[in-house]
């Protein structure tokens, strides 16, 4: 590969390679600095910040190029990477959230054993997820997916001296691995049936075999295989453990973008098989409903804040699945747009919820060297000592509950509109059920908000430490985004609409 070819690479590739190249640099510099000085000056956190900030540069260029000429693509050998609306959506969410998480971790993770590894993985996983969003070859997609899993195992089981953390890591690993084998089986079936792995070519080949049972089986395997990572009920059982045991920044990443990356991987894999049956959409709707029921009911009984938030993620995946189901089954583009809007708003809200809960966990337990979970009872009176964290936490929770004028309401609304647009009586019933679930979810969000504003503080609050200043930055930014996009939802149209268009194109034509 000569220099000319290197400079001619499409700019979006740097969005993928740059973090991946930075990752070993972050690790090595972090290690060396620590060896040399034997103090607690962890350089890795600053290098990671530079790394993630530098990725915004190719992002801006990519954005411009996409606006100017639509989807970008790059082919090496027989494998194509294509950046379309869907990839751009994921890239936006991933980059934004990982930047904030790096800033957040600056104090949260400071002084932990293996800090440089943490940052190396965090930087790597953001590149990997962008790559996942761009993969246009079925096997390559799986490989990115596997890479995402492998980079996240360490992050989940980061507290290696905590049995609970290891337990969560093992469940996550085994269940992901089972899912990944199912996906491989599906890929083998598709390859055997169509003779190709390129998504566009598969679609062309599958179009002629609308009654192929082999392709049906492949689609089923994809749904279940990727479904493990998306936490579709009943493959969700690992999620509450992993999300509650991981460091809070990672919980935010897992809930905010990793689940969503899995969802986009599923859509990519399922799209070329769209012609074989219309049942895909129905399956997504069925799973969406079961996700909402299970997620909400289980969240209702939780006493640990992070575990509760994890269950609420399961419920929120349900909304996205229903929107996508509407889009796929009824051909209703509004469903896809609503779903992608909800994906973005869930990234913001759940990101904020985990980060602010994490901030409280940090000041009440972690900073004191304890590993107790944050209980709802611990929240009592937090507003008196931590007014800012209490406010943003409440904003996140009320947004998740779907109260206007926060962004969660707007995105849910769009999904509901799509449901009514189908003018199908069954769908209207389902939408009413969705709305009912939204109301039910208030039964566990509202008590937390109440607890935060109690006048009599809990012991944990009384003995808590002050919130580090760096931690406030991502909290304030996310809260502002939730409010601003809530008041002005068309702000995100630039990301959401191309994604919707891309999905409809992938499934429709």
């Amino acid at each position, binding site marked *: 590969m000569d220099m000319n070819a290197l400079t001619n690479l499409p700019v979006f590739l740097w969005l993928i390679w740059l973090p991946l190249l930075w990752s070993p640099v972050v690790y090595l510099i972090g290690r060396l600095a*620590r060896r040399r000085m034997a103090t607690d000056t962890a350089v890795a956190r600053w290098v990671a910040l530079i790394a993630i900030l530098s990725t915004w540069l190719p992002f801006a260029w990519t954005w411009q190029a996409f606006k100017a000429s639509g989807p970008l693509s790059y082919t090496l*050998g027989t494998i194509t990477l294509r950046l379309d609306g869907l990839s751009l959506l994921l890239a936006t969410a991933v980059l934004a959230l990982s930047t904030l998480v790096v800033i957040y971790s600056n104090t949260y993770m400071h002084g932990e*054993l*293996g800090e440089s590894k943490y940052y190396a993985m965090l930087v790597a996983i953001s590149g990997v997820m962008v790559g996942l969003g761009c993969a246009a070859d079925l096997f390559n997609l799986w*490989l990115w997916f596997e*890479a995402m899993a492998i980079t996240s195992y360490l992050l989940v089981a980061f507290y290696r001296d905590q049995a609970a953390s290891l337990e969560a890591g093992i469940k996550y690993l085994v269940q992901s691995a089972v899912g990944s084998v199912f996906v491989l089986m599906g890929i083998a079936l598709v390859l055997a049936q169509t*003779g190709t792995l390129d998504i566009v070519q598969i679609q062309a080949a599958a179009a002629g075999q609308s009654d192929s049972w082999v392709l049906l089986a492949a689609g089923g395997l994809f749904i279940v295989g990727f479904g493990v990572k998306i936490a579709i009920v009943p493959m969700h059982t690992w999620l509450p453990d992993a999300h509650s045991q991981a460091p809070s920044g990672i919980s935010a990443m897992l809930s905010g973008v990793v689940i969503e990356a899995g969802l986009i991987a599923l859509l990519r894999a399922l799209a070329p098989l769209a012609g074989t049956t219309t049942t895909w959409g129905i399956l997504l709707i069925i799973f969406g409903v079961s996700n909402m029921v299970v997620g909400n009911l289980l969240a209702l009984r939780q006493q640990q804040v992070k575990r509760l938030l994890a269950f609420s993620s399961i419920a929120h995946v349900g909304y996205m699945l229903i929107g996508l189901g509407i889009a796929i089954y009824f051909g209703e583009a509004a469903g896809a747009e609503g779903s992608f809007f909800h994906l973005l708003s869930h990234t913001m809200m759940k990101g904020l919820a985990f980060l602010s809960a994490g901030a409280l966990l940090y000041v009440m337990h972690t*900073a004191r060297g304890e590993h107790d979970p944050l209980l709802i009872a611990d929240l009592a009176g937090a507003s008196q000592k931590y007014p800012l964290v209490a406010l943003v936490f409440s904003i996140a929770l009320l947004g998740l509950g779907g109260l206007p004028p926060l962004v969660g309401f707007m995105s849910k609304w769009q999904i509901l509109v799509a449901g009514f647009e189908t003018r199908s009586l069954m769908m209207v019933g389902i939408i009413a059920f969705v709305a009912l679930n939204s109301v039910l979810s208030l039964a566990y969000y509202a008590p937390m908000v109440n607890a935060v504003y109690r006048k009599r503080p809990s*012991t944990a609050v009384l003995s808590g430490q002050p919130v580090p200043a760096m931690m406030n930055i991502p909290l304030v930014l996310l809260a502002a985004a939730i409010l601003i996009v809530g008041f002005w939802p068309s702000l995100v149209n630039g990301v959401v609409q191309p994604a919707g268009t891309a999905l409809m194109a992938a499934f429709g034509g």
Partner: protein
Amino acid sequence: MYLNLVLMIAAALCALQALRTKQLLASALWLACTSGIVAGWLYALGAHEVAVIELSVGAGLVTVLFVFGITIAGEDALGLRPLVPWALAGSLALALIGLVGWFILPVAEASTAVTEPTFSTTLWDQRGLDMLVQIGLIFAGVLGILGILAEKETAEEQAIANYKARQTTLIIPQTQAYPLELPSDTPIKESHV
């Protein structure tokens, strides 16, 4: 054809044995056996290169790692009553493969032969991107193992111990400044006035 049948039965039996045996070391060796048979099977299919890799990695490297792990960790929890009842586990597994089999069997005849580039061209040129991603994968894997398993990293440990010590000294005056016990429950005002 009969070779395939034999290999298939042998592989499945070895695999089953690996999961049923009551000795961890034996279990790892049965896995190596399975791997060896699978390698032979791959060879018989005409996949000569991958057969070699399977033999060296699957039967060789992985077994060594298993044995290594087993010697560190020791035997434990073997042959206990399973958490999912045997009957349920067996019938669900059978139902699953039965269903998948119903969907995909019989497998159709091979399509017309395509002239295909050599293995190395396919691997390094056509699937070059996969190779690139794999580098990242290996890096992440190594880091992951280090992160989970690394023995005490003396310099780092020391630094952290220092850091934690200083943090604790920061905490102590604070915990004393705030009363840890809640003030005795003063009744809330009867009505909210």
